[in-house]
């Protein structure tokens, strides 16, 4: 999947993946896609909850070798 920006949150624990994802989205344009990489298993549910509450769209969640990859489309 294509993306416009990548944020690697590997090694970070709650709440940093979410708080820094929000920061990464700030200077992006509506419709652009942010790829987030996380090693925190809690971020799977958190990222969905973040999308639900902020109006951004979580396009996909995948797992690759212990890392979670999220594709977040900015509102």
């Amino acid at each position, binding site marked *: 999947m294509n993306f416009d920006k990548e944020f690697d949150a590997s*090694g*970070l*624990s*709650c*709440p*940093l993946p*979410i*708080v820094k*994802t*929000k*920061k990464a989205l700030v200077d992006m344009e509506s419709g652009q896609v942010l790829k987030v990489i996380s*090693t*925190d298993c809690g971020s799977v549910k958190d990222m969905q909850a*973040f999308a639900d*509450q*902020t109006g951004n769209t979580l396009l996909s969640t995948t797992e690759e070798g212990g890392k979670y990859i999220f594709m977040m489309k900015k509102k």
Partner: protein
Amino acid sequence: MTTKKMAIIATKGTLDMAYPPFILASTAAALGYDVQIFFTFYGLQLLRKDLSDVKISPLANPAMPMPVPMPVMVQMLPGMESMATMMMKQKLAKHGVASLEELRDLCLEADVKFIACQMTVDLFEFDKSEFIDNVEYGGASMFFGFAGETDICLFV
């Protein structure tokens, strides 16, 4: 949709109890909440420029997981508090948990408003110059002006 609001009353100044207000505030701000934290009593310690005196003690904290069981008589020995604090900070860093300073900065960056209880500042004769700059000083009524309209209000 109107902006949701959250208010937190932070009353504790130990390392373990310093985390919840900053974690919840920074997360809520990331979710788009308008957030205020009212720091009162020992919670005021979390507003110091230098947070190195924020410590954790196993004493009177029986729920704290210890690597080895430690009798209270040992917990009270000199240096135990510093050792427990050092170990906790190492554990936090190892697990990728942000430092208090980083979480506090993230809160400020996200426009979380910090209010310091003026009465407690006077009571403990704290020097305001030792606190960070982004603090407003006020009392309970000032806080209720915001807290009364919140969706979530927590006491920590």
